[in-house]
């Protein structure tokens, strides 16, 4: 077999890896199915397990007075029965309840907060399979192309230049999970009306020549609320001169050009060009920091273009962001913390590799905290190494927010 054929087959394997890794059920399916499976178990068993777990928890706290245990138990009985019966209590009491207008993320929509309290920490996750790492979009980064992502234990050595990140604080952004009402407002603003409630979405709407959908946050893989918009293929304008032009025109027509900072890059796969608006946050005295996903790869709003026509756009739902400034650790501290950080995945390479970390970058990473989420600053360190003929990229994500301000 010629070298060319070899390379073609390797490229095909990488496409297959990516195809299988990115093919996932819609948001909400995981929870729905789990609920269905639980619901098929006998009620008596569920009640027993609920209280079994509760008693187990109490045993771990021996100093709890008996009277307090009784009060908790009585309360728990009520809560447990309500939860297990599927009854939903009213929505009162939630601090973020309500239907605030869904606005764009322009500066005017941000509200400044003194603090969000202690923050959960961002982290990387191993892709579902031990296959090729999700590939950075061309132009997004020049590192790790054609490499396998490795998040397991390794002996780390800093071998790069002195990092030029010299900041003492950075903004943290917070948004609350959108409701169906928010999704409806977003659709209305785009000229779409409610067409149906599609399971697993916050709404799917149809407008003149397009279908729009909104999905909430997902935990696996971690992502923020997103929208997708698909044009009616029978009502498309003439093909654009370049995929980037086509994408820009498509977004502009639908008022979906991002209000946030971005850098446009493209990626080619078969006959489809993906135009990606890589998202950035501005950090005072530093500049722009890319948002990275749970694998440490830059991402943003994507528009797929084929034969000069838009196929679909898919990206973060425009949401109002609260912002608060937090103290951050220095780059030296970050490097030292990277050396002692807990690996994000178990060991899969023996012997444990030694990795020279050579790149250091301030990034933003998403952290979900239930009904709200954060974009938090973090330092992404990376380097490559080879083991048994395979090139790996090792990434370490160190939360930038000072440890005294973090809950985990």
């Amino acid at each position: 077999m010629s070298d060319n054929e070899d390379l073609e087959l390797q490229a095909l394997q990488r496409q297959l890896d990516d195809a299988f890794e990115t093919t996932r059920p819609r948001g909400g399916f995981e929870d729905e199915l789990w609920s269905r499976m639980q619901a098929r178990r006998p009620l008596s068993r569920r009640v027993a397990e609920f209280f079994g777990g509760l008693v187990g928890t109490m045993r771990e706290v021996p100093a709890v007075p008996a009277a307090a245990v009784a009060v908790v138990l009585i309360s728990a009985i009520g809560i447990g029965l309500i939860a297990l019966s599927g009854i939903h209590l009213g929505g009162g009491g939630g601090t973020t309840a309500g239907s605030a207008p869904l606005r764009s993320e322009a500066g005017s929509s941000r509200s400044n907060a003194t603090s969000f309290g202690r923050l959960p920490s961002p982290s990387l996750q191993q892709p579902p399979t031990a296959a090729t790492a999700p590939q950075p979009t061309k132009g997004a980064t020049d590192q790790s192309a054609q490499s396998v992502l490795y998040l397991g234990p390794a002996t780390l050595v800093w071998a790069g230049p002195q990092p030029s990140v010299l900041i003492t604080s950075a903004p943290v952004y917070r948004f609350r999970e959108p409701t169906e009402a928010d999704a409806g407002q977003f659709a209305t603003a785009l000229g779409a009306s409610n067409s149906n409630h599609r399971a697993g979405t916050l709404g799917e709407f149809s407008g003149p020549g397009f279908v729009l959908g909104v999905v909430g946050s997902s935990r696996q893989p971690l992502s923020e609320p997103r929208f997708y918009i698909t044009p009616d293929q029978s009502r498309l304008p003439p093909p654009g001169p370049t995929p980037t032009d086509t994408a820009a025109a498509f977004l502009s027509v639908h008022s979906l050009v991002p209000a946030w900072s971005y850098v446009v890059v493209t990626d080619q796969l078969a006959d489809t060009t993906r135009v990606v608006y890589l998202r950035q946050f501005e950090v005072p005295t530093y500049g722009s920091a890319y948002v990275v996903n749970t694998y440490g790869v830059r991402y943003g709003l994507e528009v797929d273009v084929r034969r000069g026509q838009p196929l679909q756009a898919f990206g973060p739902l425009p949401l109002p962001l609260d912002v608060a400034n937090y103290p951050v650790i220095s780059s030296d501290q970050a490097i030292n913390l990277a050396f002692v950080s807990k690996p994000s995945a178990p060991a899969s390479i023996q012997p444990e590799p030694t990795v020279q970390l050579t790149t250091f970058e301030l990034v933003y990473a998403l952290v979900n905290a239930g009904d709200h989420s954060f974009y938090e600053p973090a330092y992404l360190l990376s380097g490559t190494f080879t083991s048994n003929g395979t090139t790996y990229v090792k990434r370490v994500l160190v939360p930038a927010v000072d440890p005294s301000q973090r809950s985990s």
Partner: protein
Amino acid sequence: MAGVGSNNHETAYDSAVFADRPPFEDLYRDFLGRIYAYVRAQVSTAADAEDITAQVFMNAYQAYGRFEARNTTPAAWLFRIARNATLDHFRAHGRRERLRRTIEHQPQGVEDPAGMAEERIQYRALLAHVAGLPERQRDAITLRHSGLSFEEVGTLMACSEDAAKMLYHRALKALRASVQAEDVS
């Protein structure tokens, strides 16, 4: 606890809890996405893939009490159930669906926009080519790229590890030829 031999859900779950094996919830979280992708690569709609995936985990949930960790890996065990469920689907629906997908392996326009968003549109054509491969080649590709080792692929396909590697390599070449043929046309 219910007696051995009962096949109700309670028995299966309780056995799993008391035996030395990971909680089923861990398997569920680790494998749901992979099983879905494996199924989705072979059927034409996201709805079918969800139905089959649901059936896989319902079956696995019931059978987990009988899972023997020393005999097989959780991955091979789950993918065996998934493979059987997918084959059952094809038996129930005939080969018409696969034929249709082979012919119409273009994105479905507005027919399934949510599915398109979730599944990354640019890969759908590639996966449609996979779906159009002969059954054993398709199996080799889908199982391997679902994260199984060649040993596990061989076990599931009732052949040796080396045979699985050869079959996979042939399948890869066939897939490349299929993709190139479309590019030419």
